[in-house]
């Protein structure tokens, strides 16, 4: 696969191309973090996050590459690692006195949300993820999930989202999270 082909496949949401890219630049990208006071684990984490940012931009059609993919991803890694270093620095110099109550509630809401998403069928999950995370077109979603046409994809997305909304609202009101 050449650079152009990989990029095109990634734009289409081809996960195999993403895996290929991940392997291809693994050493190069993780080295950046490791040689800048990061551990192997942090390096992998940063590289994965960077690649996912790249993936998300590419699949949503919001990315026009003006450089090589590796250059672009490398710059995301740099930014992410810089941010992480800043965060660490702040943590060590600041006192942590954030409101525990707020953290608890928001993490509880996150847990509920994750459980609700988990309750959806696999196709539903995929449709919603492709729509809201990858921001794929309905045509791409239909192609990827084998739907007959974009109308089917739209209907599916609508129903799945409605189902998720209902699940979340029911759970939130049970926990008094809704106004």
């Amino acid at each position, binding site marked *: 696969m050449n650079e152009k082909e990989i990029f095109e496949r990634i734009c289409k949401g081809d996960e195999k191309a993403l895996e290929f890219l991940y*392997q291809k630049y*693994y050493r190069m990208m993780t080295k950046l973090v490791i040689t800048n006071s990061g551990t192997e684990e942090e390096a992998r984490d940063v590289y994965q996050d960077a690649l996912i940012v790249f993936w998300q931009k590419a699949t949503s059609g919001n990315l026009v590459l003006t450089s090589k993919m590796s250059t672009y991803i490398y710059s995301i890694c740099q930014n992410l690692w810089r941010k992480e270093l800043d965060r660490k620095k702040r943590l060590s110099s600041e006192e942590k006195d954030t409101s525990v109550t707020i953290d608890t509630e928001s993490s509880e809401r996150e847990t509920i949300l994750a459980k609700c998403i988990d309750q959806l069928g696999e196709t539903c999950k*995929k449709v919603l993820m492709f729509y809201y995370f990858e921001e794929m077109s309905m045509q791409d979603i239909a192609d990827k999930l*084998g739907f007959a046409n974009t109308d089917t994809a739209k209907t599916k997305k609508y129903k799945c989202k409605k189902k998720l909304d209902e699940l979340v609202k029911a759970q939130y009101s049970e926990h008094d999270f809704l106004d």
Partner: protein
Amino acid sequence: MASEKDFDILDEYAGNRLNPQDRAAFEQQLESDAELKNELSLQREIIEGIRTARKAELKSMLNNVPISSLPAEGMSTAAKIGLWVIVAGLVSTGLYFYFNQNDNTVAQPAVTNEVKEENTENTLANDSNSATEAIPQTARPDQEAPVQSQPKVSEKQTTKSATPKTDTPAKVEEQPAVEPSTLDVFDPSQDAESAEHAASEEIGPKLSTKSSIAVETEVDKRYNFHYQFRENKLFLYGSFEKNFYEIMEFFSNNKRTMFLYYKDNYYLLNDADEKVKPLKPINDAALLKKLRDYRGN
């Protein structure tokens, strides 16, 4: 009061799908509509939840991509040559053992694209435990493990055959990958039952050393993560191109049990009939443990 249409627009707004003009107009409307504002904040939270879940899924997918096999970038040329010599040596050893395995009484796991068929009379027990139990038994001399294959794995397999258990796990390994599986709850007993039928119905008496099951991957829009036994072949439907997958084959008491390993999940392959079946991950903890032990992960 907000209408149904407003909520549709709100969904597009929260999903970043409005064009700049509509976006501006909607933001203006939001200013004067408290109900819509509340709903927006909830929708943002839900959508964020979906994004977080997807991100976690992608990270987990990337975590399963084999990296260690790649030569380190800073490695010297001499070290690289050394590495390849070792790999070549291991492959040769693997092939040697493979071609000489007729003499072995204990079948050895092998990595392969072909999986030998067995003359099986029967049968897995009725639940998942039976499948589990099937594993640790001694393989029969005529139940040889499959064939040749990709270097990386044969090395691994050869090592594994030294384990105390004397089975015949056969592995298929190919490159390419599959989409993250999308599977529903697995019912081990169901699958074990069908596996039982499989063993009893399908395979007629054949030359155990010659018959084989080839594995093919196919993309079919109707099936995103399925499998099928047809024409003496195992077909895997889905995007199985680039990642590794493995077929593990166990023999005991004249019955064969096959599993697919893919992206950290194990799937029971029921060869009872030629129907296309969805791949469902095995959830049974005891069986999983056995399989992991065998695979060495």
